[in-house]
């Protein structure tokens, strides 16, 4: 679930307030929004995808918070991972992150073939 908004990165654009399907965030005039309803977070990572500043971190555990801090996250290289791998915004023209979802059919077929062999 959502654990942290990095105050050093957040621009206060409130994109997360708008896109969060479960209304977790509360705007706070100009500054970073508050994580007002953490227990309503559905761990869908959509806020990270829509955060142009990569200022949000959603922990992997959907049942409990995974407390962390800004310094750890900034060093982790994980901030913005979802947005980058999705090829959004400034990554749109980078061929390394081109949408390859269409390979899904072939992957399913290879999984079926592998399981038939085993």
């Amino acid at each position, binding site marked *: 679930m959502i654990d942290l908004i990095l105050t050093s990165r957040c621009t206060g654009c409130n994109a997360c307030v708008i896109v969060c399907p479960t209304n977790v965030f509360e705007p706070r005039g100009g500054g970073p929004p508050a994580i007002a309803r953490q227990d309503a977070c559905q761990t869908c*990572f*959509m806020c990270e995808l829509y955060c142009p500043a990569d200022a949000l971190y959603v922990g992997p*555990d959907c049942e409990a918070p995974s407390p962390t801090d800004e310094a750890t996250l900034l060093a982790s290289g994980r901030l913005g991972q979802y947005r980058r791998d999705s090829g959004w915004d400034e990554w749109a023209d980078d061929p390394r992150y081109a*949408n390859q979802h269409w390979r899904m059919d072939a*992957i399913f077929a290879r999984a079926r073939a592998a399981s038939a062999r085993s």
Partner: protein
Amino acid sequence: MVVRLTSPDTAARGADGVTLAADVLVIGGGLAGGWAAIAAARAGASVILVEKGYFGASGVTATAGPGHWWVPPDPAGARSQAIAQRNARALGLGDPRWMERIIDLTWRTLPTLAPYYDFPTNEAGVTQFRGLRGPEYLRALRRLASDLGVRILDHHPALELVADPDGAVVGAKGLRRQAGGDWLVRAGGVVLATGGCAFRSRLLGAHNNTGDGLLMGAEAGAELSGMEFSSYYTVAPARTTMTRSMSYGFARYFDADGRRLEIAPGPDVTRALAAALLRGPVLCSLEDTPQDIRAVMPQVQPNFMLPFDRMGVDPYRDRFEITLTGEGTVRGVGGLRLADDDGGVGVPGLYAAGDTASREPVAGANSGGGAQNSAWALSTGAWAGEAAARFARRPTARRMSRGEGLGRVGLRPARRAGAVAPGEIEGAVKAEMLPYDKTVFRSGPRLARSLETLEEAWKASRDHLGDGAADRLRSREAAAMAAAARWCCTSALARNESRGMHQRTDAPASDPRLARRLRLRGVDRILVLPERTVGREEILP
């Protein structure tokens, strides 16, 4: 590409809320609701789309990567072959005519999204339409709908339908949970596209999918069908929401002592895994995943690795604990019964689409998986939107009819209010609907016990849930989940056999006499009405 966000509606603010009018009101901004709004607008209607969360990020499509049932018209015979294969899996409850309809409409409609979705090409340069990434798909639907003039109201959950004295649906009411106050939309036609009910199982993207549309539709007089086909489960790393199952085609499973479990990937994996999980923890390894697939996964499913990376787990090297997450009617089948080819539910002015509508005509007793389900959502959305637009603009339409709110349970308690909290009802429902021994391995006596418990939760909800001080959305969601649970169990008890995903330990075989759909009527008192026919074919007695 820069993300453009539309601000929450600021046209009319006020503590008491707003009243708006449109030809068509679409309730729900997922795959089906998006296509419904687009189709209604293309038909010339004025359209308002209300969404509980955000149209673009809400729902089970936004977090997934739906493929569509994609069968070219050539060579001749390809479609009839695909339909025959699918109809065999529907186990007597499918309808080839509906399958043909959704294949055809999907084929013609999906490419119209091209100006808004960057359909990739494969190595041979052929444009790939069939599978889309969820967030980009929903973002494209939002932009197209917006360009067609659809008025999108995010964070506007619907609480109830509004009907005129003749029973025709003429609008809906709900909450403006960010702007404050209530909303009322008067509309000539209303499309329910609120998704299915996953009983708050932590299925990815499904927190808002509490069956609201099923309850609203039934309160207006619509029937349900196929609610026993609500026992689909998907594997996920334990304590995560990441129910993206493709990679588990390469999975090996182990018990807590490291012994290999002989569970081959395939259709029976759920029952085998559920049995193992009832015995103890189950670990998984994805070490058989080929290297080239590992390398490309972040660009195929960009969210798949997020929980692993953040847990410090390398799923291709480390064994990790897994769980099975219930999907309820989401990748199950049941929902409101469509009474005609246009997505009408048999109530004037009311239509249903996507997971809110029973998918039995195309899926029968088995889940349609991603492909049939997405084609169903697109097609029923498009038909419902178009039909609602036609209905709203018929010469005899009465504009701005007055109406009454139809919501009862969770909104207007029959007795002393406030004595039961939504969380209590939600907890009781989850305890009957999610455990493997109650839903994967059903039996008559267990279902009867579940129904008794659910009946008590329902009575408590009816009498006490939701008053002026309560969180009206949570109360209403709890009521909707309780209603859906009662329909699922009632139908599962009536289907005294095993068929497709509905498996009864006390009746493990299929009964040819039950090769028919089970319709349900009623909210408080539920009637089971076995259909006499499937599709257009008469069933022999």
